[in-house]
């Protein structure tokens, strides 16, 4: 069998985080009683006219600047015409030949190191309504989502595997979150992805026939769909067949991609310039003023965490993957002498306590910095530090006071630890016998018993030393 490579380009739709819809003043919010957030404009009633939401344009510009795109000083909206019950005007206001942003890129971590993924374009458009299939009532339509502002981010076919595609999606999502362009909630449909995929024998230059995989609403579906589809295409080629250019959907229950429509059935959208909206003109000054509001982006932050705070590459990547977590780290890190430990605590303990989609921690950064200090200077051990974060999560207070009140500081007094060890050995003759019998695991169990006796406060290094001493001493008895 020949060796194949997979060529992937992604089209991501992200809802923009505006107060109101793209072309009317209806609120832009997820959910709500069906058809309570609509007006003549988003319902496409006769005579209603769209008026562009300038905030949506600004957010789209921010997304473009954050992905190193060229932002057009002049662009226009177009009509994409097709009939569908969830599309009230029977056309979607979108952008065809003059998109707002072009020629950007994102950097991802690939197997061979850092890799730049090109972004062909970012354009603005409006979302459609939602069809609800009801067994008794038939098909119903909810227009609350209709007219919600979207950006479509089209990548170059620069991705070569499901892993790269996921890395790109995660990077894109974190960048959009950083600039506040979108809340990127996949479960609410505010971040959706279509995949264009083809395969070709390694070494060949020409691209193979591609298929488009539609509406993949989770990262794991995206990865599974890519893997299945690449294998499917390779099998066809290996069997001497030809891949058909078509649109396919992913069926999560079977893990397969299934045909939706072929190229022949592809609609002619009859694009033409939207006559109800004038050209969108953005001054250079306005674009640079927006650029000045951009926060520090994940790549730059990650570099800073490694260089300034000595955080490991892996931890730094995790911290920057979520802007609120990165912001939290940046607020706490300068307050502790042990930023590396702070990063560990956040990743191992706080991330587990967080139940929100995005990091949201009730502990003040100053208190978390104190926990890192207590751990760093040996005042508490790591199991106490874990306990502290759980308590603080429930009730934010000074960890130092808590340690004093609950007498949680580490026991480093050798005489106290030695008596605890002797006591333990007296109580557990069987463990001792096992140990003597050559069962090394018994030593571990003995450490655990002493830890339990001291409520986890024993300094592990000192305890280890004393236990060894006591065992070798009793051995000679």
């Amino acid at each position, binding site marked *: 069998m020949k060796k194949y490579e997979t060529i992937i380009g992604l089209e991501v739709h992200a809802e923009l985080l505006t107060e109101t819809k793209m072309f009317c003043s209806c609120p832009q919010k997820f959910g709500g009683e069906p058809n309570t957030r609509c007006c003549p404009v988003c319902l496409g009633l006769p005579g209603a006219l*769209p008026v562009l939401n300038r905030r949506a344009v600004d957010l789209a510009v921010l997304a473009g600047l954050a992905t190193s795109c060229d932002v057009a000083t002049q662009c226009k909206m177009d009509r994409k015409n097709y009939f569908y019950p969830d599309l009230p005007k*029977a056309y979607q206001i979108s952008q065809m030949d003059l998109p707002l942003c072009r020629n950007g890129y994102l950097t991802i971590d690939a197997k061979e190191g850092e890799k730049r993924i090109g972004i062909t374009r970012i354009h603005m458009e409006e979302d459609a309504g939602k069809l609800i299939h009801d067994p008794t009532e038939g098909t119903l*339509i909810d227009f609350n989502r209709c007219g919600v502002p979207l950006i479509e981010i089209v990548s170059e076919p620069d991705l070569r595997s499901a892993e790269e595609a996921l890395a790109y999606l995660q990077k894109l999502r974190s960048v959009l979150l950083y600039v506040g362009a979108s809340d990127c909630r996949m479960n609410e449909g505010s971040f959706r992805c279509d995949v264009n995929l083809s395969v070709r024998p390694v070494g060949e230059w020409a691209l193979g026939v591609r298929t488009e995989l539609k509406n993949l609403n989770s990262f794991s579906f995206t990865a599974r769909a890519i893997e299945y589809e690449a294998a499917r295409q390779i099998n066809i080629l290996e069997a001497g067949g030809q891949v058909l250019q078509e649109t396919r959907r992913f069926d999560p229950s079977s893990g397969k991609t299934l045909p939706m429509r072929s190229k022949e059935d592809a609609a002619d959208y009859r694009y*033409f310039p939207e006559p*109800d909206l004038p050209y969108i003109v953005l001054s250079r000054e306005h674009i640079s003023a927006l650029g000045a509001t951009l926060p520090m982006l994940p790549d730059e932050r990650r570099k800073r965490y490694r260089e300034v705070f000595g955080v490991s590459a892996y931890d730094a990547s995790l911290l920057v993957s979520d802007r609120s977590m990165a912001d939290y780290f940046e607020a706490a890190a300068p307050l502790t002498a042990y930023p590396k430990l702070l990063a560990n605590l956040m990743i191992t303990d706080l991330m587990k306590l967080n139940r929100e989609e995005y990091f949201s921690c009730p502990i003040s950064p100053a208190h978390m910095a104190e926990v890192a200090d207590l751990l760093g200077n040996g005042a508490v051990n790591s199991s106490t530090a874990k306990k502290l974060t759980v308590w603080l999560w429930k009730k934010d207070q000074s960890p130092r006071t808590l340690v004093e009140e609950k007498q949680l500081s580490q026991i480093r007094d050798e005489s106290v630890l030695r008596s605890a060890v002797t006591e333990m050995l007296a109580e557990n003759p069987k463990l001792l016998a096992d140990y003597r019998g050559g069962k090394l695991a018994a030593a571990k169990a003995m450490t655990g018993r002493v830890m339990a006796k001291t409520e986890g406060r024993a300094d592990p290094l000192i305890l280890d030393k004393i236990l060894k001493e006591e065992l070798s001493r009793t051995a000679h008895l």
Partner: protein
Amino acid sequence: MKTLLDRTLTEHIRALEAREYSSLELTRAYLDRIEEIDSEIGAYLFVNTDEALKQAVASDLRRRRGDTRSILDGIPYGAKDNLCTKGIPTTCGSRYLEHYVPPYSATVIERLAAAGCVFLGKLNMDEFAMGSTTEHSAFHPTKNPHDPTCSPGGSSGGSAAALAANEAVFTLGSDTGGSIRQPASHCGAVGIKPTYGSVSRYGLCAFASSLEQIGPLTRTVSENATILSFLQGQDPRDATSRSAPVDSREHTIALHTLRIGLPRELFSKDIAPEVRSRALDAAHMLEKLGALVEEVSLPSLTYAAPTYYILSAAEASSNLARMDGVRFGRRAEGVRDPEALYCRTRSEGFGEEVKRRILLGTFFLSRDRYDEYYKKAFRAKLLIQAEMTSCFANCHLLLSPTAFTSAPQLGIRESDPAAIHRRDLCTVPANLAGIPALTVPFGKDCCGLPIGVQLMGPLWSEPLLYKVGEELERIRAKEWGGR
């Protein structure tokens, strides 16, 4: 002795102020007139009797309290049926919208309500404003009050006929390619297609968004200017609307320094000789008063009619796609899948002319034809705009016939749509260029049917058009005693 209905807007305004009669009396007089004559004329599709009387009473009350809303407070008017009116049927002359009642009112309707006007009802039109005789109304044709065997023109035929039959003080129409000016010309009314963007289109059921404007039809030029001043102005709900620039220097041009161009292309041999000679008469008489009249040539106008038909059909095919049977209007019975719903509903709901234009427009925009038709027409439009702009560097305004003929007989079924379209030659350039164009009645033909003369000027030149229009009215009064 003039009856109440023979009076002009200015006279009504004065009489209401002097309490000579009330808005209720005036409104009743118009409602009675509609009741008496409209079964014969067929100008109205809906008469707002009860509401209109209530509005008149409210207006009279305001007047007694001394808090009238504007000089128009208490003046009754009618509007073309493609202007949305909250709670009042808005059919666009189509079976598709036969029972449609909009939940909101067009900006122009709101503005006139805010001015205190009394709303008499909705006026007949060619379906979705596509046509030039009002015979494409899905409900009934409208007759020309000057000769009931003739058409009032179209598509705002109801608006022009209602005015000519004294069924309203003024009316509103919409003009996509001449739909205000041509019927005004056929019915002896003054009509204007204002500068594109000067009147909000919010609530006007769209036919061709980039070309159309709402405008008033009135008996006199000064009335027209008065009504337009209430309609104009930027509207936050229409992104293409703008306020007039502050300086309107055109207004100060004295007649003896005025340069008038006669575009050779708009005096085509296909135009009825009587109609052409009325326009030439108008030019000569203005010349006698000191204006400089010269023939000009705008070669790109040769392409105006096809350009107009391609662009308007393309936009219409998209604008009318929302009539899909899903959310409002007509819905075909007994269909299961969406595809069948669209096909059946639209086949049942639309008339032949509308279907023809939707099919053409869909063709013009299709992937394989776009460059050949839409794109080319779009470029032709820019060319026409540029040519007209440079023409206005040499003359202040252009004078031409409004329509090719006086009002045509009803019931003449023409087989060649392209021939019908060519007859819009004089009116479509103003829509393509976005410039204002005014038609003023100027004499009659041998059968006594009115003939209009058209004045076109650069963007925002309405004040100049009105000024010269009034001059034509004075000449007409002198020559034919006001006829």
